[in-house]
């Protein structure tokens, strides 16, 4: 069913060549049917959906691959955990030291108080969108929130760039909102056809957000309660093993990892300094979780996707036709 590429609609032309040659004509026919007599916004939405699918095909993020399947399991949790963490950060904002910083990070990697309020509130929006069943809006809000965190941190950092040694840039880049970018990436990487839209699936999210809020609000100070966030993350991952989906523990780990990074990066840095590690070794240690995550995601996505729903009884081998 191949067609001249130039005769295909623009969104369909974005597919990789092999996929376009095999499926382009059929996709174009369905697109034409779906947009016939449709309004302009509906046509734009259809085209954007095809373009997004084409981009997934080109980047290995199709819903038949393991990492997007894990991201789809993680996405609801990301919305809940990000909202809980952000709400806890807003609560402790007046108590941070030095004033105007977040996450216990040092001043140059902080952000202004208005920036903290805006980014904190933005990270609550994906949860509201998910609870309303609006996944596209949740993804947009997630990208906006992560971008706002990076922009606010850069706005704080750039006027002070002259004070920074060149060899400090690496650690500053590590702290400029990369955990929040991981959250946004998980939301975007989750394929629409794998996202849980059921009311029961959404009903548990406020509980997850509240649990994150409590652990982050209570456990942010150094001291015995400082292990509360880590303990909460360990319990969450342990509970994930009770679910039938094999990728669920990976999904939970990915969703809670930014909370751990935000909570403990500066503390680990301090321990490294106190232990006499060099600057480069300290940066390597603090960068290790995110670097390992990137490598893990790449390795995971190279493997064949596990069957999402194995049938209860041995299936017949032949194809059913009518």
């Amino acid at each position: 069913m191949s067609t001249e590429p130039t005769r295909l609609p623009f969104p369909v032309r974005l597919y990789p060549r092999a996929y376009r040659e095999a499926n382009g004509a059929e996709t174009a026919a369905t697109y034409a049917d779906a947009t016939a007599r449709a309004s302009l916004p509906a046509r734009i939405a259809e085209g954007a959906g095809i373009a997004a699918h084409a981009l997934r095909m080109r980047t290995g993020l199709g819903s038949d691959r393991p990492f997007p399947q894990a991201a789809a399991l993680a996405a609801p949790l990301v919305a809940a955990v990000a909202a809980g963490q952000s709400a806890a950060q807003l609560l402790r904002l007046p108590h941070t030291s030095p004033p105007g910083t977040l996450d216990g990070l040092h001043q140059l990697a902080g952000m202004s108080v208005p920036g903290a309020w805006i980014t904190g509130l933005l990270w609550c929006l994906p949860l509201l969108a998910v609870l309303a069943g609006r996944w596209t809006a949740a993804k947009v809000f997630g990208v906006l929130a992560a971008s706002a965190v990076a922009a606010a941190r850069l706005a704080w950092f750039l006027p002070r760039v002259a004070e920074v040694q060149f060899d400090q840039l690496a650690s500053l880049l590590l702290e400029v909102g990369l955990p929040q970018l991981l959250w946004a990436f998980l939301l975007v990487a989750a394929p629409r056809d794998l996202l849980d839209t059921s009311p029961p699936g959404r009903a548990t999210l406020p509980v997850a957000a509240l649990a994150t809020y409590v652990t982050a609000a209570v456990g942010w100070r150094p001291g015995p309660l400082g292990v509360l966030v880590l303990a909460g993350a360990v319990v969450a991952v342990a509970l994930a093993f009770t679910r039938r989906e094999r990728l669920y523990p990976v999904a939970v780990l990915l969703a809670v990892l930014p909370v751990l990074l935000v909570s403990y990066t500066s503390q680990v840095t301090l321990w490294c300094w106190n232990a006499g590690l060099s600057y480069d070794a300290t940066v390597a240690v603090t960068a290790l979780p995110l670097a390992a995550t990137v490598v893990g995601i790449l390795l995971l996505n190279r493997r064949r996707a596990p069957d999402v729903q194995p049938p209860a009884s041995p299936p017949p081998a032949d194809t059913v036709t009518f």
Partner: protein
Amino acid sequence: MQEPTLLILTALADRPRHGYGLMQEIATISAGRYRMRTGTLYGALDRLLGQNLIAVDREEIADGRARRFYTLTGQGRAALTAEAERLRSVAAEAERRLRAPRPRLQGGAA
């Protein structure tokens, strides 16, 4: 099983359908609550083909447009049967409990 997968398999349970036919049938089955877009549909179809839950039944040209018809495989039929049974048992249990007499609240106002 996620709702989009359930809807696609259900739409294919009675006969093979092409892409746009699937989109229309999904809107009908869900009483207009779920409207699947073209990009989402083909992402799901790629996955279900890879999982051997559906297969291509035939290809044809109708009204100058290329049509590829998809059908349930035996494995897809078994998966849909198992999911329908699970949903049926949950619904039956919910109805049984709703029919049961409700206990009176203790300690109410005199």
